[in-house]
Structure formats: structure tokens, C-alpha cells
């Protein structure tokens, strides 16, 4: 179960990117990494140390969980552990996006007022 603060405090960029990468379905570590890179148009490159360190904290916070261990048909015959969002993870992601939207609204209002 996610603690109450998780949904209320701003997420770190790494956590946000991982949540975004998992929002469309379960993925393994390498898949998350590639999805993050694609989502950010190559601007965010996450190494295994950051990725798995963040995932450990997210699992402890109840944002994601291991879903399965199976072979990725697009890669080789090695089994991979897949991760997926939990309900709390989806809530945290939505809360974060809502927070971003409000910040953007304020910023746009200020800029429009300034002009």
C-alpha cells in the first residue's frame, strides 16, 4: 500500500518517467529503459543503477509490483521479470500530472498577463 505522502508530494523525474513508461502496460527493465528514452525523445537516459534503485523505492511505496517472469518474444529466449503499475501507482501518476497541469496553467497565465 502506498503511503499517503506518495500521492501528494512531487515525484522525482526518474519515478515519473518509470510510471509513465509502465502506464501503457507491463515491461521488463530494459523495456522500461527504452520506453523512457522514447518518451523523452532521447533526452533522459537512465542507467540500471538509477532504474532499479528507483524501482526498489517504488515497490516499497507500493507504486509498482512484479507481474510475471517470462520470455520476451521480440528479444531472446531468456526469461525476464516484468513490472506493472499498481492502483496506487496510477493514482500517484494522475496526481502528479494534475499537479503539472496546474503549474503549467499558472505559468501560462502569468506569461499571458506579462505580455
Amino acid at each position: 500500500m502506498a503511503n499517503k505522502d506518495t500521492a501528494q508530494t512531487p515525484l522525482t523525474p526518474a519515478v515519473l518517467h518509470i510510471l509513465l513508461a509502465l502506464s501503457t502496460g507491463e515491461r521488463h527493465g530494459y523495456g522500461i529503459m527504452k520506453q523512457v528514452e522514447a518518451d523523452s525523445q532521447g533526452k533522459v537516459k537512465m542507467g540500471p543503477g538509477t532504474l532499479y534503485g528507483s524501482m526498489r523505492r517504488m515497490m516499497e511505496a507500493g507504486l509498482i509490483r512484479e507481474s510475471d517472469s517470462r520470455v520476451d518474444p521480440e528479444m531472446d529466449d531468456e526469461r525476464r521479470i516484468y513490472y506493472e503499475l499498481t492502483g496506487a501507482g496510477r493514482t500517484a501518476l494522475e496526481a502528479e500530472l494534475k499537479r503539472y497541469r496546474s503549474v503549467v496553467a499558472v505559468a501560462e497565465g502569468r506569461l499571458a498577463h506579462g505580455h
Partner: protein
Amino acid sequence: MVTNVAGRRYRTWYAMLLRLYPRTFRERFGEGMAQTFHDLCREHEDDRRGLFGFALWIFCETLAGIVRENIMRMDQLGKTMLRVALRALALLMVPLVASRVVEGWNWPAGAFVRVYVLFFATGMTYALIARRMGAWSYKVGVGVALFAGFALGWSTMVQTADSGHPERLWYLSALAVGVVAGAAKGAGVGSYFVRDGGDACANCRDAAFRRSTRHGAKNGHRARCLRGVVHRVRPAVPARESGEIGVRPREIANLSLVAKSKSPPKYVIPAEGAVRGECISTRWGTSESQWRDSRRLR
């Protein structure tokens, strides 16, 4: 499969690097990390890109993660040791840089090691003693004493090195006496702890009591601790058994506080029978360190 020799070598090294993670983390994510690294290597090979720069970045990035995870799992003592070790290292930079800049400052390598040990030992001693103290005045006192000890150790080492008389190291015995005395004090030797036959508060279980001279049914089992605070006591609880740390005293109850801000706190001793089962506490029991500190008799 990574067929490239360099790729296989990097993969082996990466697996070795992963062993530096805390065991619980490694068991949970180690395999996945190794596999991710393998996938990344293969991607680079398929694109015919060089592996060295990529592997170097991944190794550094993973190393940072290892440090982060290990620090997170360290207990308080480990964190203190790491902090002191890093500060000692920073202090060591002063003579290290000076030996490069100042003419005639030619320390052998052994001298740097000894100085680092001296820095670290002094810092650790201060950290270990100061963490048990609540009041800044005590911390300053400990700091001054340790600085004096450090200066003595330093000057003795310099004198010995300059003069070539190793017998001057006997000056360090003054430090040894201080260390032994401090350890004995810490162990309670010569303190006022009442071990056998003493009373302990039935509620807060404070072991720091004088022997209750008039305890008994008529006196309501009251005893005064060495801070001058009156406690309701239960003679059946030996102080030896009640000395564990971690039980916090309760709030003051049933006693009139005369002067809260003064130390030791003064309370009006209640009339016989006025204390109704509640333990009284003291104003210093607000944090764990202060609470521990309050248990050591001064």
C-alpha cells in the same frame, strides 16, 4: 548472446560489480540488472557502436547506485563512521596539499596514514560521546578535551619523529589514562548507580535512584533520584533489571512544579499518600539522547 570478447568481459565485470550491492537488493534485482546490461551491450554491438565509453558510463552510474543503496541501509553507527571518515579525509587534504606547495614540507607516506588515523580516531571519539549528550555545554567540553588530546598526540608524534627518541611516545600514556578513565566512567565504575537493593520507579523504571532510606508502606514508596526529583518507587523492582534504555518516562503528574526552568528541577514533595500511582518525570526526557543522558548520573 554477446559474442564479442569485450562484451563478455564487461558482462563478467558488471556481475562482479553487482556483488557490491546490499544482499537483499542484489537477490531481488541483481539478475534483472545483469540482464539489462546484457541487453544494452547487445544493442550497442548490433549498432556497431563502441562499448568502452558506454560500459564506463554504466559502471559509474551503477557504482553511484551502489553507494546510495549501501548508505541507505547503513545503521546510524555506520553512517557516523562514514561521515567521520570523509571529514577526516577532507582534513587530510590540508597537509597533503601543503606538502606539495610549501617548500620543506616533506612528509613520508606513513606520516599521512598516522595523521589520518589520528583525525579519524578523534572524530569518532567525539561523535560517539557527543551523540549521547543532550546539552551543548557538555558537547563543547568533550570537544575541548578531545582537541587537547589530539594536540598532545600530534605534538608527541612530531617530537618523536624530529628527535628520534621513541621513548617520548610515553607522553601518550597521559592520553591512555584519559581513555581508560572515560571508559570506566562510561561503564558506570564509580558512579552512583544503585545496583543491588536499590529502588526503581515502577513506571518509568529509572535506575538512577539513591537507596530509598525510608521506603515502606507508610512513606508511600517515594524516593528521590540524584536529580532531586521525587519518584514513586516500587522496592520490588531492582535497579539492575530496570536499567534498560528505551523506556521513556511519562509526563509529570500529581506533583506541583516549583521552578521548571532550573536544573535540577525542583518539585514540592507531596504529602504522604498524595502520589496516586503516577510516575513523575523530568523536563530533560524529551529526546532519546537526552533521555539516555539523564540516566547517567552526574
